[in-house]
């Protein structure tokens, strides 16, 4: 039985498919025009998947998660799915060493191959060059190359993705659709003012506030940023305040962060999940949002910052994902954290300008989840038709 956790319903995958066809039919879609999109893995705390699939029914797609990709093999042969893969690291969930990881990659690819043989279409969204927590980089590269080869459609958000992945694995251009990351307009609460947000966090109106937001982990560059923060303070005459907020990572990593933060009155660490209504407090309080990541292609934090009208500092490789707001994105060289601080100072100079705010709000409107979702489904349908699926 599936779906209990998400919707309070107990349904088999087959029952969900039948319900999906009925629901699509009720919207006036002909069966020939209706598609069932099953996605894996399902992430519940990150609203990305809900945003991406927001317009599914209007565009003839019923979207639902599959708990395990093997579930699909039990479906009757007349049901053909669009299998949409997101983050691939789950393939290595039980792997204890590189040998086991190698076997897991092969097994995962074989399962996708069987699904393709059964007539299902395969779509992959490339969120990262490598998983944030990649423990077996060689095996993961092999897996990613294999999925790219098997996929019928590859969805990228950053137009530079193909080039950035090229040193590691190929993404065939003929399969690629480019649909950017949606903004979070209408997703996160946005009704409190800057003064309230700063008051709630104990910040003064003239503090220069830099926000590092999102789950805490080694790939986020938090340690590197904190290690050289004194230079930023020197440039800003001690007026910088650093907010770090997000779900805590592994205990050993958090102890490292605690050690770096200890003794710093200019850094506030909020190590907890921030709910959808709490996000605004941090982004409204901030002058600049900083993503000091050591690697990455896209960032929900960048899209969130833009939605709240805040300039954002990102690694250079990620800057391409901000098409349309490049003037508000301040890239740095991810190998040089000093350049991150220079980008922070430059971004601060732009923060608070009404013209910049208006441009970012326009971008957020144009990239609202329903708008991006519509673009995604139109591009997907066209590409699937190209490859006869």
């Amino acid at each position, binding site marked *: 039985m599936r779906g209990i956790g998400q919707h309070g319903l107990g349904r088999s995958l087959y029952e969900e498919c039948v319900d999906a066809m009925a629901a699509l039919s009720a919207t006036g879609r002909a069966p020939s025009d209706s598609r069932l999109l099953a996605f894996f893995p399902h992430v519940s705390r990150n609203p990305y998947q809900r945003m991406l699939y927001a317009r599914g029914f209007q565009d003839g797609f019923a979207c639902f998660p599959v708990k395990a990709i093997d579930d699909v093999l039990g479906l009757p042969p007349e049901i053909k799915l669009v299998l949409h893969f997101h983050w691939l690291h789950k393939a290595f969930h039980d792997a204890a060493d590189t040998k086991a990881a190698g076997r897991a990659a092969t097994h995962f690819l074989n399962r996708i191959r069987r699904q393709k043989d059964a007539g299902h279409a395969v779509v992959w969204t490339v969120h990262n060059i490598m998983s944030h927590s990649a423990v077996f980089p060689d095996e993961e590269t092999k897996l990613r190359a294999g999925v790219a080869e098997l996929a019928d459609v590859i969805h990228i958000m950053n137009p530079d993705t193909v080039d950035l992945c090229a040193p590691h694995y190929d993404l065939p251009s003929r399969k690629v659709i480019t649909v950017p990351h949606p903004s979070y307009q209408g997703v996160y609460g946005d009704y409190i003012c800057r003064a309230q947000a700063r008051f709630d966090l104990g910040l*003064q*109106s003239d503090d220069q506030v830099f926000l590092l937001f999102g789950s805490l982990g080694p790939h986020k560059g938090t340690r590197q940023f904190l290690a050289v923060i004194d230079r930023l303070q020197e440039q800003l005459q*001690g007026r910088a305040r650093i907010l770090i907020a997000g779900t805590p990572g592994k205990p050993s990593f958090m102890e490292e962060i605690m*050690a770096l933060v200890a*003794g710093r*009155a200019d850094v506030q660490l909020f190590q907890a999940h921030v709910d959808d209504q709490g996000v605004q407090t941090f982004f409204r309080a901030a002058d600049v949002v900083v993503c000091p990541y050591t690697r990455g292609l896209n960032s929900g934090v960048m899209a969130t910052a833009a939605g709240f009208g805040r300039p954002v500092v990102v690694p250079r490789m990620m800057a391409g994902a901000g098409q349309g707001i490049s003037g508000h994105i301040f890239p740095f060289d991810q190998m040089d954290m000093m350049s991150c601080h220079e980008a922070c100072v430059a971004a601060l100079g732009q923060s608070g300008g009404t013209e910049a705010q208006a441009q970012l709000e326009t971008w957020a409107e144009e990239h609202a989840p329903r708008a991006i979702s519509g673009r995604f489904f139109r591009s997907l349908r066209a590409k699937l038709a190209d490859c006869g699926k």
Partner: protein
Amino acid sequence: MTTLAGYRRLTKRDFALSKMAAFGLVSRQKVLLARRPVMRRFALVGRRAVHFDVCFLTDAQMVARDAVHVQVTYRPAFSARTLKMEEHQLFADPHPAQARRQRVWLCPPRGARFADVAFARRTRGQKVALDGVLRLAAGQAKPSLADIDDVLVTHDLTAMSLLLADAEKAGNRAAAQQLLARMQRLSHSHEIFTNLASLREASDLERFGVTASLPGLEALEGDEDVVFDYAAWVSPPASDGLPFLKQVRAEALALHGLLRGTGAATLHIAAGDRLLARMLAAALLRTAAPTMKIRLDWHGFRKAPQQCGPWLRYDSGASFLATNGGKAVESALAADAL
């Protein structure tokens, strides 16, 4: 993480003994603490500092800061009035193998004959256990700043508090910074954060001057000939518990209100108590009221010793004005000064 399987729950008998302040009187205790405290009375000999060592463990994955509340009440006689009360928030370690003893110091005030020590769990949703023999150790000297390196590698928050007081007295900022950094790792106490903020702000003031501002403040439209005699701190004494810069900010806002109320556009910073602090408040106010005229006896300020909080102390005002920050403050106040 540990399941704390070898630790027993507190029983009715424990709480009955606690009522007589006799919890843990005879043997080593390995108990799961409750939110209801258990208490033990210790007899004291004179004013000599004594201590006991205990371990605390948690079933959480990370060190649980402020997991244990320890309250120490000093009394002059059995069942007599309270002479002094101290509170400590101690942490709990997640792994028994890494659990370190935490030292609780008892520094009796004059006249104290007994100390009642109560232990309680502060956290919800996680178990916290006490492991140790509740016995006072005598004969060891109270730690001093000379022991700082040894103290910094311990989990001994009470010793760190004692050293911090010494560092404050000596105006030793580097030692205070080290101690507060370590204390912040072990505790989420707001007092530690406030102290750290004050220390940092004092250091920033010396380097950069008053860099804060007061945005949104109404302009001063008083008469230049009306002089406000700024002879004493005008904020309530409660502001002393705030971080340094917040004290100055509160004072500047209060001062602004007084200037508007009296229609004054000239501020005479008179000699007297907290002169340096008042000068800084005036410098901050000036960022929002650049037309305000300032009168100050610079000569008197230079000659006299000056102090503002524990971390800004000078043999003479001239020493402060010789710092980069002091120069910036002087230049901000002296512009158009009368």
